[in-house]
């Protein structure tokens, strides 16, 4: 067991993970997918019971950089393995898109305690920005991603007054109302394509067409690999950003505002400033990745941005463990991949999903991977 | 008709979460008597009340009302056994009228005649409540709310009335008034367990008393004994 806490163990674990994900992606028959799902569940359970998970956890903590590199290598490895598989590359990228979106939501709600049940609406705001701008302007696409984020921030500011003035249930209704409003608004706006939706041009960065298949030395690579690579870069930035926030005075402010506003105010923390900051940061990330998602799919419709989708984002955070980055990654993967793969349960996926969330909240209220204590960067003086 | 049931707390320990607040406390409220529990803030008086009423059940030891063990009995059933409570801070139902508050005090009473009878008694004790019976309790002054709370406690014609810090936040004049009423209630036959920090007036009306300090009984005796005891003074000015 002890081997799991050193580099060899981590290497082995990530290798197993990579092989597992690759086989899951590749699996066609429902039986295989079913077996693989059960395998994952039992491995998780056994790991928890035997202390293997804790060992691995300890190892990862001690070899942080090595683990991240291994994990990254594993993802890239899987992507290379799936290089000509449109469907699975798209799915893998979609998982990353959801991870990024939820990281945005997590800043608002995991760190700062701001309930946002309109995540999909801000995500959609970015998407529609991309639709309008790619169709009607020549603005460089990278810039459009940024504009998507900024539009989401601006739309968020419409809600800022009620968000600041309300708490708890009353705050929830503000974002729920906005979520429903947004969906109806895009559905009935002819300018945005109405219920039929709107086409979005594919990404093109400095002349590099993302929607063209790549041919390297005779190897045919799916055009989704372009999106995969960019999503991975965005994901790494989003994770670095989230971690930097968490391990800074800003993260500390966010946490104290979430946990005890009165005490925080008594020690000089400006509650409004940090709520606005968290809300804007989260919406920016949601809008930016929403624009990316729209450009990848090439098409968006109001049905992608319903209250139900917002709910899925909030569920991912709660399932993963509020505030926990690895938790969000794991939960996004489960929530996106499993229903896609288990076509046999396709019809029942919402039911199973809902029951699953209820069970996890009842029996594991802190989520799959609980958020770790804040680790500030080590200073030289603390070497010992 | 005088009460005949004693309340006995034997070697009881309880507290909240990981912390024990009461340690090995034994207290008896004799039938027909006014028994008082004295002590400064934070001595554990209110926790004792909560324990007796089943809101914070005892972790060890037991609580018995007459022959019945009520250590683990749920609160609404404890009330059904003939105990009634005037909670700390009065705790009237602020959105209800005076009459509704009083009727809630008689929630367990089935017979409308009995309720009417109790109402008559309460109105006799507090004519003001009769005048104000349709007023919303939350809009009344502290003194008036105290009347509502005491009246409500009497509506079920209890054997034992547990009164938690009736003087809290009341003007001195009204405190004196309240103590007179407590004596009157006792004279009519109801046993009283009175929890107070106001030592002199409490001892003046009670028969027997206990002094709590740091969650333990630090002194007990008849009120005469306690009045002359240094223990009481030192429980406050140590």
């Amino acid at each position, binding site marked *: 067991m002890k081997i799991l806490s050193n580099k060899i163990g981590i290497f082995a674990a990530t290798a197993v993970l990579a092989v597992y994900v690759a086989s899951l992606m590749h699996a066609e028959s429902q039986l295989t997918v079913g077996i693989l799902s059960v395998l994952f569940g039992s491995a998780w359970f056994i790991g928890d019971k035997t202390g293997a998970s804790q060992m691995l956890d300890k190892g990862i903590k001690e070899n942080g950089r090595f683990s991240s590199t291994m994990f990254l290598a594993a993802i890239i490895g899987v992507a290379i393995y799936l290089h000509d598989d449109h469907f699975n590359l798209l799915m893998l990228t979609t998982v990353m898109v959801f991870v990024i979106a939820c990281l945005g939501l997590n800043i608002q709600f995991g760190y700062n305690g701001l309930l946002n049940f309109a995540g999909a609406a801000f995500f959609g705001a970015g998407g529609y920005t991309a639709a309008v701008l790619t169709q009607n302007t020549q603005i460089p696409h990278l810039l459009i991603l940024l504009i998507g984020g900024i539009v989401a921030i601006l739309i968020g500011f419409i809600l800022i007054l009620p968000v600041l003035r309300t708490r708890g249930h009353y705050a929830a209704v503000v974002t729920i109302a906005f979520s429903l409003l947004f969906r109806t608004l895009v559905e009935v706006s002819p300018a945005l394509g109405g219920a039929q939706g709107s086409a979005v041009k594919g990404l093109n960065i400095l002349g590099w067409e993302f929607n063209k298949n790549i041919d390297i030395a005779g190897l045919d690579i799916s055009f989704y690999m372009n999106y995969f690579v960019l999503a991975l870069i965005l994901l790494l930035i989003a994770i670095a*950003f989230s971690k*930097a*926030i968490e391990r*800074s*005075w*800003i993260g*500390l*402010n966010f*946490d*104290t505002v979430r*946990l*005890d506003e*009165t*005490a*925080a*105010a*008594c*020690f*000089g*923390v*400006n509650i409004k400033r940090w709520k606005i*900051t968290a809300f804007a940061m989260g919406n920016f990330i949601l809008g930016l990745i929403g624009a990316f998602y729209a450009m990848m799919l090439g098409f968006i419709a109001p049905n992608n941005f319903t209250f139900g989708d917002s709910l899925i984002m909030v569920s991912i955070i709660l399932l993963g463990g509020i505030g926990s980055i690895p938790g969000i990654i794991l939960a996004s993967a489960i929530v996106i991949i499993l229903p896609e793969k288990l076509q046999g349960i396709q019809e029942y996926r919402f039911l199973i999903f809902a029951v699953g969330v209820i069970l996890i909240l009842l029996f594991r209220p802190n989520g799959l991977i609980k958020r770790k*204590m*804040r*680790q*500030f*960067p080590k*200073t030289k*003086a*603390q070497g010992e | 008709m005088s009460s005949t049931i004693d309340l006995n707390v034997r070697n009881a320990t309880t507290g909240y979460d*990981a*912390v024990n607040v009461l340690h090995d406390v034994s207290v008896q409220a004799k039938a027909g008597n006014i028994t008082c529990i004295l002590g*400064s*803030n*934070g001595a554990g008086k209110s926790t004792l009340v909560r324990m007796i009423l089943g809101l914070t059940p005892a972790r060890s030891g037991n609580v018995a009302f007459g022959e019945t063990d009520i250590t683990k009995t749920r609160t609404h059933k404890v009330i059904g056994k003939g105990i009634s409570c005037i909670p700390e801070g009065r705790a009237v139902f602020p959105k209800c009228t005076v009459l509704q508050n009083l009727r809630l005090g008689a929630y367990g009473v089935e017979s409308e005649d009995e309720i009417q009878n109790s109402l008559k008694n309460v109105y006799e004790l507090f004519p003001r409540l009769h005048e104000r019976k349709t007023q919303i309790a939350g809009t009344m*002054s*502290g003194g008036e709310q105290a009347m509502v709370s005491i009246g409500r406690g009497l509506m079920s014609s209890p054997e034992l009335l547990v009164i938690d*810090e009736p*003087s*809290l*936040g009341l*003007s*001195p004049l009204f*405190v*004196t008034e309240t*103590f*007179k009423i407590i004596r009157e209630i006792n004279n009519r036959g109801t046993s009283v367990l009175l929890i107070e*920090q*106001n*030592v*002199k*007036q409490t001892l*003046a*009306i009670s028969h027997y008393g206990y002094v709590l300090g*740091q969650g333990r009984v630090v002194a007990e005796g008849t009120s005469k004994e306690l009045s002359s005891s240094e223990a*009481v*003074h030192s429980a*406050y*000015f*140590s």
Partner: protein
Amino acid sequence: MTNISLKATGVVKRFGGLVALDKVNLEVHNEEVLGLIGPNGSGKTTFFNILTGIYSTTDGKMEFRGKDITGMPPQAVFKSGISRTFQRARLCLELSVFDNVAIGDHPQLNQGLWFNIINRKAFRHEYGSCHDRVAELINQFAPHLSSKLNEPVGNFPMIDRRRIEVCRALLGNPKLLLLDEPSAGMTEEETRQLMDEVIDIRKKRGDLSVVIVEHEMGIISRITDRCVVLNFGKKICEGTYEDISQNSEVQKAYLGDDL
């Protein structure tokens, strides 16, 4: 320059019909330890809450070191040099000891986005010096926690939480420290220890005044220079502990009138 740190004049607080504070005049002298005592519900904690800006005042004026602080929001009051602890230790139980204490240094820490997120080197430097100050205070008040700075506060018993709270309140070098029932949830001995340490710090810092709300008279008598007694929101008496404990008004407030 006068000898007065805090001067509250005619402070009134009403909650609906209830008068929680009734024209209270109160002065805290520089470098003194003032006991604020009175029976339950006499308005002691309300006074703290008004002073620190959690409640608004109905009437009256409060000056701190010559500056009017009436109606200031809590952040501003804190920045002017008033720091406090809470009756029910208000710590963030999920957060570490370090986090909880470090928030007390908030005004001294650079809160800029660039500084915190991008300029990590500068941040690390500031973190280092903050860490040293936190460690120093913890070493003084709770040496056994020195090696546990990264453990969540929820893991520790009440006495440690109180100590952490005091460290948080002291980290920003306040000029006035408000202690709200530090003995709640602790034994007499534990309270005594903690108070001795507070007095020790006060002596070392020199320019620190302390107001303490407490019902354990043993503590009040040991550590206060002067006491103010409240009853029904009114100041009924002030003086040294010896004076007030002999005062008939005070005895009446605590022990009650004769019937």
